Protein backbone atom coordinates (compact mmCIF):
# COMPACT_ATOMS: atom_id res chain seq x y z
CA UNK A 1 0.00 0.00 0.00
CA UNK A 2 2.93 2.33 0.71
CA UNK A 3 4.09 2.33 -2.91
CA UNK A 4 0.58 2.93 -4.23
CA UNK A 5 0.01 5.77 -1.78
CA UNK A 6 3.35 7.34 -2.75
CA UNK A 7 2.54 7.06 -6.46
CA UNK A 8 -0.87 8.64 -5.94
CA UNK A 9 0.72 11.41 -3.87
CA UNK A 10 3.23 12.03 -6.68
CA UNK A 11 0.36 12.25 -9.17
CA UNK A 12 -1.51 14.64 -6.87
CA UNK A 13 1.61 16.81 -6.52
CA UNK A 14 2.03 17.13 -10.28
CA UNK A 15 -1.68 17.72 -10.82
CA UNK A 16 -1.69 20.35 -8.08
CA UNK A 17 0.99 22.28 -9.95
CA UNK A 18 -0.93 21.85 -13.22
CA UNK A 19 -4.00 23.41 -11.61
CA UNK A 20 -2.19 26.77 -11.48
CA UNK A 21 0.82 26.35 -13.76
CA UNK A 22 0.74 24.37 -16.95
CA UNK A 23 -3.02 24.26 -17.18
CA UNK A 24 -3.03 21.23 -19.48
CA UNK A 25 -5.97 20.16 -17.32
CA UNK A 26 -4.73 16.65 -16.71
CA UNK A 27 -5.67 17.64 -13.15
CA UNK A 28 -9.38 17.24 -13.93
CA UNK A 29 -11.13 14.21 -12.37
CA UNK A 30 -11.91 12.71 -15.79
CA UNK A 31 -8.14 12.23 -16.27
CA UNK A 32 -7.01 11.73 -12.66
CA UNK A 33 -9.73 9.13 -12.03
CA UNK A 34 -8.41 6.54 -14.51
CA UNK A 35 -4.79 7.36 -13.56
CA UNK A 36 -5.48 6.68 -9.89
CA UNK A 37 -7.36 3.59 -11.05
CA UNK A 38 -4.27 2.49 -12.97
CA UNK A 39 -2.12 2.80 -9.85
CA UNK A 40 -4.63 0.85 -7.75
CA UNK A 41 -5.26 -1.73 -10.47
CA UNK A 42 -8.86 -0.82 -11.31
CA UNK A 43 -9.00 1.50 -14.32
CA UNK A 44 -12.66 0.80 -14.98
CA UNK A 45 -13.86 2.06 -11.58
CA UNK A 46 -11.40 4.95 -11.96
CA UNK A 47 -13.11 5.97 -15.18
CA UNK A 48 -16.59 5.79 -13.65
CA UNK A 49 -15.64 7.75 -10.53
CA UNK A 50 -13.59 10.23 -12.58
CA UNK A 51 -16.53 10.85 -14.90
CA UNK A 52 -18.91 11.29 -11.97
CA UNK A 53 -16.61 13.72 -10.14
CA UNK A 54 -15.92 15.61 -13.37
CA UNK A 55 -19.62 16.47 -13.60
CA UNK A 56 -19.65 17.69 -10.00
CA UNK A 57 -16.69 19.99 -10.66
CA UNK A 58 -17.66 21.12 -14.13
CA UNK A 59 -18.76 24.57 -13.07
CA UNK A 60 -16.41 24.93 -10.13
CA UNK A 61 -13.66 26.89 -11.87
CA UNK A 62 -11.60 29.86 -10.63
CA UNK A 63 -13.94 32.49 -12.08
CA UNK A 64 -12.50 35.96 -11.67
CA UNK A 65 -9.83 34.43 -9.46
CA UNK A 66 -12.07 33.06 -6.69
CA UNK A 67 -10.95 29.65 -5.40
CA UNK A 68 -13.58 26.88 -5.73
CA UNK A 69 -13.43 23.61 -3.71
CA UNK A 70 -10.15 21.99 -4.76
CA UNK A 71 -10.64 19.80 -7.80
CA UNK A 72 -7.30 17.94 -7.57
CA UNK A 73 -7.69 16.60 -4.04
CA UNK A 74 -11.37 15.93 -4.69
CA UNK A 75 -10.56 13.86 -7.76
CA UNK A 76 -7.62 11.96 -6.26
CA UNK A 77 -9.08 11.18 -2.86
CA UNK A 78 -12.58 10.52 -4.17
CA UNK A 79 -11.33 7.99 -6.70
CA UNK A 80 -8.84 6.33 -4.37
CA UNK A 81 -11.44 5.84 -1.64
CA UNK A 82 -14.10 4.59 -4.04
CA UNK A 83 -11.70 1.92 -5.32
CA UNK A 84 -10.25 1.00 -1.90
CA UNK A 85 -13.61 0.78 -0.14
CA UNK A 86 -15.48 -0.56 -3.17
CA UNK A 87 -18.14 2.13 -2.74
CA UNK A 88 -20.43 3.46 -5.47
CA UNK A 89 -19.01 6.32 -7.60
CA UNK A 90 -21.70 8.67 -6.25
CA UNK A 91 -20.71 7.86 -2.66
CA UNK A 92 -17.16 8.94 -3.57
CA UNK A 93 -18.52 12.47 -3.88
CA UNK A 94 -19.41 12.44 -0.20
CA UNK A 95 -15.78 11.60 0.63
CA UNK A 96 -14.20 13.93 -1.92
CA UNK A 97 -16.09 17.11 -1.10
CA UNK A 98 -15.07 17.64 2.57
CA UNK A 99 -11.39 17.17 1.68
CA UNK A 100 -11.61 19.53 -1.29
CA UNK A 101 -13.23 22.24 0.82
CA UNK A 102 -10.53 21.94 3.49
CA UNK A 103 -7.80 22.17 0.86
CA UNK A 104 -9.47 25.20 -0.70
CA UNK A 105 -9.00 26.92 2.65
CA UNK A 106 -5.34 25.84 2.86
CA UNK A 107 -4.64 27.23 -0.62
CA UNK A 108 -6.02 30.60 0.43
CA UNK A 109 -3.64 30.60 3.41
CA UNK A 110 -0.75 29.57 1.15
CA UNK A 111 -1.40 32.47 -1.23
CA UNK A 112 -1.51 34.89 1.69
CA UNK A 113 1.71 33.51 3.14
CA UNK A 114 3.46 34.01 -0.18
CA UNK A 115 2.87 37.78 -0.25
CA UNK A 116 6.07 38.71 1.66
CA UNK A 117 8.11 36.94 -1.07
CA UNK A 118 7.19 39.80 -3.37
CA UNK A 119 9.25 42.21 -1.26
CA UNK A 120 12.22 39.86 -1.63
CA UNK A 121 11.60 40.03 -5.39
CA UNK A 122 11.58 43.83 -5.26
CA UNK A 123 15.01 43.77 -3.64
CA UNK A 124 16.24 41.35 -6.31
CA UNK A 125 14.93 43.56 -9.10
CA UNK A 126 16.76 46.50 -7.57
CA UNK A 127 20.00 44.54 -7.90
CA UNK A 128 19.08 43.22 -11.34
CA UNK A 129 19.09 39.69 -9.96
CA UNK A 130 16.81 38.05 -12.56
CA UNK A 131 18.09 34.59 -11.60
CA UNK A 132 16.72 35.07 -8.10
CA UNK A 133 13.28 35.97 -9.39
CA UNK A 134 13.24 32.85 -11.52
CA UNK A 135 14.15 30.80 -8.47
CA UNK A 136 11.32 32.33 -6.44
CA UNK A 137 8.91 31.08 -9.10
CA UNK A 138 10.41 27.58 -9.10
CA UNK A 139 10.24 27.67 -5.30
CA UNK A 140 6.53 28.58 -5.47
CA UNK A 141 5.81 25.58 -7.69
CA UNK A 142 7.89 23.30 -5.45
CA UNK A 143 5.84 24.37 -2.42
CA UNK A 144 2.61 23.60 -4.26
CA UNK A 145 3.94 20.17 -5.24
CA UNK A 146 4.95 19.30 -1.66
CA UNK A 147 1.68 20.55 -0.26
CA UNK A 148 -0.44 18.37 -2.56
CA UNK A 149 1.91 15.42 -2.11
CA UNK A 150 1.41 15.46 1.65
CA UNK A 151 -2.30 16.23 1.60
CA UNK A 152 -2.97 13.31 -0.75
CA UNK A 153 -0.58 10.85 0.91
CA UNK A 154 -1.73 11.10 4.54
CA UNK A 155 -5.43 10.28 4.19
CA UNK A 156 -4.86 7.55 1.60
CA UNK A 157 -2.08 5.81 3.50
CA UNK A 158 -3.55 6.14 6.98
CA UNK A 159 -7.27 6.57 6.32
CA UNK A 160 -8.17 3.91 3.77
CA UNK A 161 -8.88 1.17 6.32
CA UNK A 162 -10.84 3.47 8.59
CA UNK A 163 -12.86 4.77 5.65
CA UNK A 164 -13.54 1.20 4.56
CA UNK A 165 -14.85 0.38 8.04
CA UNK A 166 -17.05 3.49 8.06
CA UNK A 167 -18.53 2.67 4.66
CA UNK A 168 -19.24 -0.91 5.80
CA UNK A 169 -20.87 0.24 9.03
CA UNK A 170 -22.98 3.00 7.47
CA UNK A 171 -26.68 2.16 7.09
CA UNK A 172 -27.90 1.68 3.54
CA UNK A 173 -30.08 4.80 3.53
CA UNK A 174 -27.03 6.97 4.26
CA UNK A 175 -25.12 5.52 1.31
CA UNK A 176 -28.20 5.84 -0.91
CA UNK A 177 -28.75 9.38 0.33
CA UNK A 178 -25.19 10.31 -0.57
CA UNK A 179 -25.78 8.75 -3.96
CA UNK A 180 -28.89 10.86 -4.52
CA UNK A 181 -27.04 13.99 -3.40
CA UNK A 182 -24.23 13.09 -5.78
CA UNK A 183 -26.67 12.98 -8.67
CA UNK A 184 -27.92 16.45 -7.78
CA UNK A 185 -24.47 17.94 -7.16
CA UNK A 186 -23.64 18.93 -10.78
CA UNK A 187 -26.48 21.47 -10.51
CA UNK A 188 -24.32 23.55 -8.15
CA UNK A 189 -21.52 23.94 -10.68
CA UNK A 190 -23.96 24.72 -13.48
CA UNK A 191 -25.73 27.28 -11.29
CA UNK A 192 -22.35 28.86 -10.56
CA UNK A 193 -21.73 29.29 -14.28
CA UNK A 194 -25.26 30.62 -14.78
CA UNK A 195 -24.78 33.12 -11.99
CA UNK A 196 -21.86 34.63 -13.90
CA UNK A 197 -23.24 34.38 -17.39
CA UNK A 198 -27.02 34.32 -17.37
CA UNK A 199 -28.93 37.48 -18.10
CA UNK A 200 -32.08 38.00 -20.07
CA UNK A 201 -30.15 37.98 -23.35
CA UNK A 202 -29.06 34.40 -22.84
CA UNK A 203 -32.12 32.70 -21.32
CA UNK A 204 -33.24 31.74 -24.81
CA UNK A 205 -30.02 29.79 -25.43
CA UNK A 206 -30.32 27.95 -22.12
CA UNK A 207 -33.83 26.83 -23.13
CA UNK A 208 -32.55 25.79 -26.54
CA UNK A 209 -29.84 23.57 -25.04
CA UNK A 210 -32.22 22.09 -22.48
CA UNK A 211 -34.83 21.23 -25.10
CA UNK A 212 -32.17 19.80 -27.39
CA UNK A 213 -31.34 17.11 -24.84
CA UNK A 214 -34.69 16.64 -23.10
CA UNK A 215 -36.86 16.22 -26.17
CA UNK A 216 -34.52 15.82 -29.15
CA UNK A 217 -32.00 13.59 -27.33
CA UNK A 218 -29.08 15.23 -29.11
CA UNK A 219 -25.50 14.61 -27.93
CA UNK A 220 -23.62 17.50 -26.31
CA UNK A 221 -21.27 17.99 -29.27
CA UNK A 222 -24.18 18.36 -31.70
CA UNK A 223 -25.72 21.02 -29.46
CA UNK A 224 -22.39 22.81 -29.07
CA UNK A 225 -21.88 22.94 -32.83
CA UNK A 226 -25.43 24.18 -33.38
CA UNK A 227 -24.83 26.90 -30.81
CA UNK A 228 -21.53 27.77 -32.48
CA UNK A 229 -23.42 28.26 -35.76
CA UNK A 230 -25.86 30.64 -34.05
CA UNK A 231 -23.01 32.51 -32.39
CA UNK A 232 -21.22 32.90 -35.73
CA UNK A 233 -24.33 34.19 -37.46
CA UNK A 234 -24.77 36.68 -34.63
CA UNK A 235 -21.09 37.69 -34.70
CA UNK A 236 -20.89 38.36 -38.42
CA UNK A 237 -24.29 40.05 -38.53
CA UNK A 238 -23.19 42.52 -35.89
CA UNK A 239 -19.98 43.12 -37.86
CA UNK A 240 -22.03 43.95 -40.93
CA UNK A 241 -24.43 46.18 -39.01
CA UNK A 242 -21.70 48.25 -37.42
CA UNK A 243 -20.25 50.15 -40.41
CA UNK A 244 -23.79 51.26 -41.31
CA UNK A 245 -24.37 52.52 -37.80
CA UNK A 246 -21.09 54.38 -37.92
CA UNK A 247 -22.02 55.87 -41.29
CA UNK A 248 -25.38 56.98 -39.90
CA UNK A 249 -23.63 58.73 -37.03
CA UNK A 250 -21.35 60.59 -39.43
CA UNK A 251 -24.36 61.86 -41.36
CA UNK A 252 -25.89 63.16 -38.15
CA UNK A 253 -22.71 65.04 -37.30
CA UNK A 254 -22.62 66.62 -40.73
CA UNK A 255 -26.24 67.67 -40.37
CA UNK A 256 -25.36 69.29 -37.08
CA UNK A 257 -22.70 71.41 -38.73
Amino acid sequence: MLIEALLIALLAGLAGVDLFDGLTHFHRPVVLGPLVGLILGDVHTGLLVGGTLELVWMGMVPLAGAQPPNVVIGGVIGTAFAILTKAEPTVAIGVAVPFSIAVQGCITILFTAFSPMMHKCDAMAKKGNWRGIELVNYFGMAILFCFYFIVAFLPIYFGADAAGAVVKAAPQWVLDGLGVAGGMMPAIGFALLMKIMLNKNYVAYFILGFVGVTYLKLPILAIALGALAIAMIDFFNSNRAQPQAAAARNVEVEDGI
Partner: protein
Amino acid sequence: MAFNDSEAALAAKAEKRMEQALATSSVERDDYIDTIPAEPLTKKDINRMAWRSLALQASFNYERMQAGGWLYTLIPALRKIHKNDEDLRNSMKMHLEFINVHPFDVTFLSGLVLAMEQSKEKISTIRAVKVALMGPLGGIGDAMFWLTWLPICAGIGAALALEGSMFGPIVFLLLFNALHFGLRFGLAHYGYRAGLGAINVLKNSTKKISHAASIVGMTVIGALVASYVRLSTPLEIHAGEAKIALQSGVLDKLMPNLLPLGFTLVVYWLMKKGYSPVKLIGLTVLLGLVGKFMGFL
Protein backbone atom coordinates in the same frame (compact mmCIF):
# COMPACT_ATOMS: atom_id res chain seq x y z
CA MET B 1 -19.78 40.01 -13.94
CA ALA B 2 -16.64 40.98 -15.77
CA PHE B 3 -17.70 40.75 -19.37
CA ASN B 4 -21.26 41.91 -18.91
CA ASP B 5 -20.22 45.07 -17.10
CA SER B 6 -21.14 48.52 -18.31
CA GLU B 7 -18.51 50.91 -19.65
CA ALA B 8 -18.57 52.93 -16.42
CA ALA B 9 -18.06 49.86 -14.23
CA LEU B 10 -15.15 48.74 -16.40
CA ALA B 11 -13.55 52.15 -16.21
CA ALA B 12 -13.88 52.19 -12.42
CA LYS B 13 -12.24 48.76 -12.23
CA ALA B 14 -9.37 49.87 -14.46
CA GLU B 15 -8.84 52.88 -12.22
CA LYS B 16 -8.68 50.66 -9.15
CA ARG B 17 -6.14 48.38 -10.86
CA MET B 18 -3.99 51.36 -11.74
CA GLU B 19 -4.03 52.38 -8.06
CA GLN B 20 -3.03 48.85 -7.05
CA ALA B 21 -0.21 48.86 -9.59
CA LEU B 22 1.13 52.21 -8.50
CA ALA B 23 0.87 51.27 -4.82
CA THR B 24 3.32 48.41 -5.43
CA SER B 25 5.58 50.40 -7.73
CA SER B 26 9.25 51.07 -7.03
CA VAL B 27 10.17 52.46 -10.46
CA GLU B 28 12.56 55.41 -10.30
CA ARG B 29 12.47 56.91 -13.76
CA ASP B 30 9.83 56.94 -16.45
CA ASP B 31 11.95 56.58 -19.58
CA TYR B 32 14.73 54.27 -20.59
CA ILE B 33 18.29 55.59 -20.76
CA ASP B 34 18.96 53.73 -23.97
CA THR B 35 16.07 54.81 -26.20
CA ILE B 36 17.29 53.25 -29.45
CA PRO B 37 14.84 50.47 -30.37
CA ALA B 38 16.36 47.06 -29.73
CA GLU B 39 16.74 44.40 -32.38
CA PRO B 40 13.39 42.74 -33.16
CA LEU B 41 12.71 39.56 -31.22
CA THR B 42 12.78 36.32 -33.17
CA LYS B 43 10.00 33.75 -33.41
CA LYS B 44 12.03 31.61 -31.04
CA ASP B 45 12.05 34.38 -28.41
CA ILE B 46 8.28 34.70 -28.62
CA ASN B 47 7.80 30.94 -28.39
CA ARG B 48 10.03 30.87 -25.33
CA MET B 49 7.91 33.57 -23.74
CA ALA B 50 4.74 31.58 -24.52
CA TRP B 51 6.18 28.44 -22.89
CA ARG B 52 7.18 30.41 -19.83
CA SER B 53 3.70 31.94 -19.60
CA LEU B 54 2.52 28.52 -18.38
CA ALA B 55 4.14 29.44 -15.05
CA LEU B 56 2.23 32.72 -14.77
CA GLN B 57 0.79 31.78 -11.38
CA ALA B 58 3.89 30.07 -9.98
CA SER B 59 4.32 32.66 -7.23
CA PHE B 60 0.67 33.68 -6.98
CA ASN B 61 -0.18 35.69 -3.86
CA TYR B 62 -2.86 38.08 -2.70
CA GLU B 63 -0.64 41.16 -2.67
CA ARG B 64 0.47 41.27 -6.33
CA MET B 65 -1.46 38.33 -7.78
CA GLN B 66 0.61 37.02 -10.72
CA ALA B 67 3.38 39.63 -10.73
CA GLY B 68 6.20 37.16 -10.05
CA GLY B 69 5.17 34.70 -12.77
CA TRP B 70 4.46 37.56 -15.17
CA LEU B 71 8.03 38.81 -14.81
CA TYR B 72 9.30 35.22 -15.10
CA THR B 73 7.50 35.02 -18.47
CA LEU B 74 9.27 38.13 -19.77
CA ILE B 75 12.79 37.77 -18.32
CA PRO B 76 14.68 36.23 -21.28
CA ALA B 77 13.20 38.72 -23.75
CA LEU B 78 13.77 41.69 -21.42
CA ARG B 79 17.42 40.70 -20.99
CA LYS B 80 17.78 40.59 -24.76
CA ILE B 81 16.10 43.97 -25.24
CA HIS B 82 17.73 45.99 -22.45
CA LYS B 83 21.51 45.96 -22.81
CA ASN B 84 21.75 48.82 -20.30
CA ASP B 85 21.71 47.35 -16.79
CA GLU B 86 19.80 50.19 -15.24
CA ASP B 87 17.11 49.94 -17.93
CA LEU B 88 16.76 46.24 -17.23
CA ARG B 89 16.41 46.85 -13.51
CA ASN B 90 13.81 49.54 -14.07
CA SER B 91 11.83 47.37 -16.44
CA MET B 92 11.91 44.46 -13.97
CA LYS B 93 10.66 46.70 -11.19
CA MET B 94 7.72 47.81 -13.28
CA HIS B 95 6.79 44.25 -14.19
CA LEU B 96 6.75 43.29 -10.51
CA GLU B 97 3.82 45.62 -9.93
CA PHE B 98 0.35 44.21 -9.26
CA ILE B 99 -1.05 42.33 -12.23
CA ASN B 100 -4.10 40.12 -12.53
CA VAL B 101 -4.67 38.80 -16.01
CA HIS B 102 -6.31 35.65 -17.31
CA PRO B 103 -3.92 32.66 -17.37
CA PHE B 104 -5.16 31.54 -20.81
CA ASP B 105 -5.00 34.65 -22.98
CA VAL B 106 -2.16 36.34 -21.08
CA THR B 107 0.26 35.88 -24.00
CA PHE B 108 -1.62 38.46 -26.04
CA LEU B 109 -0.64 41.04 -23.45
CA SER B 110 2.90 39.75 -22.96
CA GLY B 111 3.49 39.80 -26.74
CA LEU B 112 2.18 43.33 -26.93
CA VAL B 113 4.24 44.46 -23.95
CA LEU B 114 7.40 42.97 -25.47
CA ALA B 115 6.74 44.91 -28.68
CA MET B 116 6.52 48.10 -26.60
CA GLU B 117 9.65 47.25 -24.62
CA GLN B 118 11.50 46.54 -27.84
CA SER B 119 10.63 50.01 -29.18
CA LYS B 120 11.55 51.49 -25.75
CA GLU B 121 8.24 53.12 -24.95
CA LYS B 122 7.93 55.03 -21.71
CA ILE B 123 7.38 52.95 -18.59
CA SER B 124 4.13 54.73 -17.75
CA THR B 125 2.81 53.95 -21.25
CA ILE B 126 3.57 50.28 -20.89
CA ARG B 127 1.98 50.22 -17.44
CA ALA B 128 -1.13 51.93 -18.78
CA VAL B 129 -1.51 49.28 -21.48
CA LYS B 130 -1.06 46.48 -18.95
CA VAL B 131 -3.72 47.95 -16.70
CA ALA B 132 -6.10 48.71 -19.53
CA LEU B 133 -6.01 45.16 -20.90
CA MET B 134 -6.32 43.17 -17.66
CA GLY B 135 -10.09 43.59 -17.55
CA PRO B 136 -11.01 42.82 -21.17
CA LEU B 137 -8.62 39.85 -21.32
CA GLY B 138 -10.04 38.50 -18.07
CA GLY B 139 -13.57 38.76 -19.42
CA ILE B 140 -12.74 37.03 -22.70
CA GLY B 141 -10.69 34.33 -20.95
CA ASP B 142 -13.47 33.55 -18.48
CA ALA B 143 -16.12 33.48 -21.19
CA MET B 144 -14.12 31.33 -23.60
CA PHE B 145 -12.41 28.85 -21.30
CA TRP B 146 -14.18 28.57 -17.96
CA LEU B 147 -17.73 29.12 -19.16
CA THR B 148 -17.62 27.51 -22.58
CA TRP B 149 -14.70 25.37 -23.68
CA LEU B 150 -14.08 23.49 -20.42
CA PRO B 151 -17.75 22.51 -19.93
CA ILE B 152 -17.94 21.32 -23.55
CA CYS B 153 -14.73 19.24 -23.39
CA ALA B 154 -15.47 17.96 -19.89
CA GLY B 155 -19.05 17.07 -20.86
CA ILE B 156 -17.86 15.00 -23.81
CA GLY B 157 -14.98 13.44 -21.84
CA ALA B 158 -17.14 12.58 -18.83
CA ALA B 159 -19.85 11.04 -21.02
CA LEU B 160 -17.28 8.68 -22.58
CA ALA B 161 -15.65 7.93 -19.22
CA LEU B 162 -19.01 7.06 -17.67
CA GLU B 163 -19.44 4.43 -20.40
CA GLY B 164 -16.11 3.00 -19.22
CA SER B 165 -14.16 4.14 -22.27
CA MET B 166 -10.51 5.16 -22.06
CA PHE B 167 -11.24 7.64 -24.85
CA GLY B 168 -12.94 9.85 -22.24
CA PRO B 169 -9.75 11.29 -20.71
CA ILE B 170 -7.83 11.13 -24.02
CA VAL B 171 -10.45 13.01 -26.04
CA PHE B 172 -10.84 15.52 -23.22
CA LEU B 173 -7.11 16.30 -23.07
CA LEU B 174 -6.68 16.53 -26.85
CA LEU B 175 -9.76 18.71 -27.40
CA PHE B 176 -9.05 21.06 -24.53
CA ASN B 177 -5.38 21.56 -25.25
CA ALA B 178 -5.77 21.97 -29.00
CA LEU B 179 -7.52 25.28 -28.37
CA HIS B 180 -5.50 26.08 -25.25
CA PHE B 181 -2.04 25.83 -26.84
CA GLY B 182 -3.23 27.08 -30.22
CA LEU B 183 -4.43 30.29 -28.63
CA ARG B 184 -1.53 30.61 -26.21
CA PHE B 185 1.09 30.56 -28.98
CA GLY B 186 -1.06 32.23 -31.62
CA LEU B 187 -1.88 35.17 -29.37
CA ALA B 188 1.76 35.58 -28.31
CA HIS B 189 2.86 36.10 -31.92
CA TYR B 190 -0.21 38.15 -32.79
CA GLY B 191 0.27 40.45 -29.81
CA TYR B 192 3.93 41.02 -30.64
CA ARG B 193 3.39 41.61 -34.37
CA ALA B 194 0.29 43.76 -34.10
CA GLY B 195 1.77 45.92 -31.33
CA LEU B 196 -0.26 48.86 -30.17
CA GLY B 197 -2.64 48.53 -33.12
CA ALA B 198 -3.97 45.39 -31.46
CA ILE B 199 -5.42 47.34 -28.54
CA ASN B 200 -8.20 48.84 -30.59
CA VAL B 201 -9.00 45.51 -32.19
CA LEU B 202 -9.28 43.95 -28.74
CA LYS B 203 -11.31 46.79 -27.26
CA ASN B 204 -13.76 46.69 -30.17
CA SER B 205 -14.17 42.95 -30.16
CA THR B 206 -14.18 42.20 -26.40
CA LYS B 207 -17.94 42.46 -26.11
CA LYS B 208 -18.58 40.62 -29.36
CA ILE B 209 -16.29 37.71 -28.53
CA SER B 210 -17.65 37.39 -24.98
CA HIS B 211 -21.18 37.57 -26.37
CA ALA B 212 -20.50 34.82 -28.90
CA ALA B 213 -18.84 32.64 -26.26
CA SER B 214 -21.77 33.23 -23.90
CA ILE B 215 -24.23 32.04 -26.54
CA VAL B 216 -22.36 28.76 -26.98
CA GLY B 217 -21.72 28.41 -23.25
CA MET B 218 -25.30 29.03 -22.18
CA THR B 219 -26.68 26.57 -24.75
CA VAL B 220 -24.24 23.90 -23.62
CA ILE B 221 -25.09 24.49 -19.96
CA GLY B 222 -28.78 24.07 -20.77
CA ALA B 223 -27.88 20.77 -22.41
CA LEU B 224 -25.66 19.69 -19.51
CA VAL B 225 -28.37 20.38 -16.94
CA ALA B 226 -30.72 18.11 -18.86
CA SER B 227 -28.02 15.44 -19.34
CA TYR B 228 -26.28 15.23 -16.00
CA VAL B 229 -28.34 16.55 -13.10
CA ARG B 230 -30.08 13.45 -11.73
CA LEU B 231 -33.18 13.80 -9.57
CA SER B 232 -36.35 11.73 -9.46
CA THR B 233 -38.91 10.63 -6.90
CA PRO B 234 -40.23 7.14 -6.08
CA LEU B 235 -43.47 8.54 -4.61
CA GLU B 236 -46.79 7.10 -5.71
CA ILE B 237 -50.17 8.74 -5.74
CA HIS B 238 -53.04 6.64 -4.44
CA ALA B 239 -56.27 7.39 -6.19
CA GLY B 240 -58.71 4.87 -4.74
CA GLU B 241 -57.62 1.48 -6.05
CA ALA B 242 -55.26 2.83 -8.68
CA LYS B 243 -51.64 3.73 -7.95
CA ILE B 244 -49.86 6.21 -10.13
CA ALA B 245 -46.11 6.68 -9.97
CA LEU B 246 -45.53 10.39 -9.52
CA GLN B 247 -42.37 10.38 -11.64
CA SER B 248 -43.34 8.36 -14.71
CA GLY B 249 -47.08 8.98 -14.53
CA VAL B 250 -47.23 12.68 -13.84
CA LEU B 251 -43.90 14.57 -13.89
CA ASP B 252 -42.48 12.93 -17.02
CA LYS B 253 -45.77 13.54 -18.84
CA LEU B 254 -45.56 17.19 -17.90
CA MET B 255 -41.95 17.48 -19.00
CA PRO B 256 -39.03 15.08 -18.72
CA ASN B 257 -36.16 16.43 -16.60
CA LEU B 258 -38.58 18.72 -14.77
CA LEU B 259 -37.08 18.00 -11.33
CA PRO B 260 -33.42 18.47 -12.42
CA LEU B 261 -34.33 21.77 -14.07
CA GLY B 262 -36.30 22.91 -11.03
CA PHE B 263 -33.50 21.99 -8.64
CA THR B 264 -30.89 23.77 -10.77
CA LEU B 265 -33.02 26.91 -10.89
CA VAL B 266 -33.52 26.82 -7.11
CA VAL B 267 -29.75 26.51 -6.59
CA TYR B 268 -29.20 29.36 -9.07
CA TRP B 269 -31.71 31.50 -7.19
CA LEU B 270 -30.10 30.76 -3.81
CA MET B 271 -26.69 31.56 -5.25
CA LYS B 272 -27.98 34.91 -6.45
CA LYS B 273 -29.19 35.51 -2.90
CA GLY B 274 -25.61 35.05 -1.71
CA TYR B 275 -25.42 31.38 -0.70
CA SER B 276 -21.86 30.12 -1.16
CA PRO B 277 -21.19 26.95 -3.21
CA VAL B 278 -19.86 25.23 -0.08
CA LYS B 279 -23.08 25.93 1.82
CA LEU B 280 -25.12 24.69 -1.13
CA ILE B 281 -23.09 21.48 -1.29
CA GLY B 282 -23.86 20.92 2.39
CA LEU B 283 -27.57 21.58 1.86
CA THR B 284 -27.63 19.20 -1.12
CA VAL B 285 -26.11 16.37 0.92
CA LEU B 286 -28.61 17.06 3.69
CA LEU B 287 -31.49 17.02 1.22
CA GLY B 288 -30.26 13.71 -0.22
CA LEU B 289 -30.01 12.09 3.22
CA VAL B 290 -33.33 13.39 4.49
CA GLY B 291 -35.02 12.55 1.19
CA LYS B 292 -33.77 8.97 1.29
CA PHE B 293 -34.62 8.57 4.97
CA MET B 294 -38.15 9.89 4.54
CA GLY B 295 -38.49 8.07 1.26
CA PHE B 296 -39.42 10.91 -1.08
CA LEU B 297 -36.22 10.73 -3.12
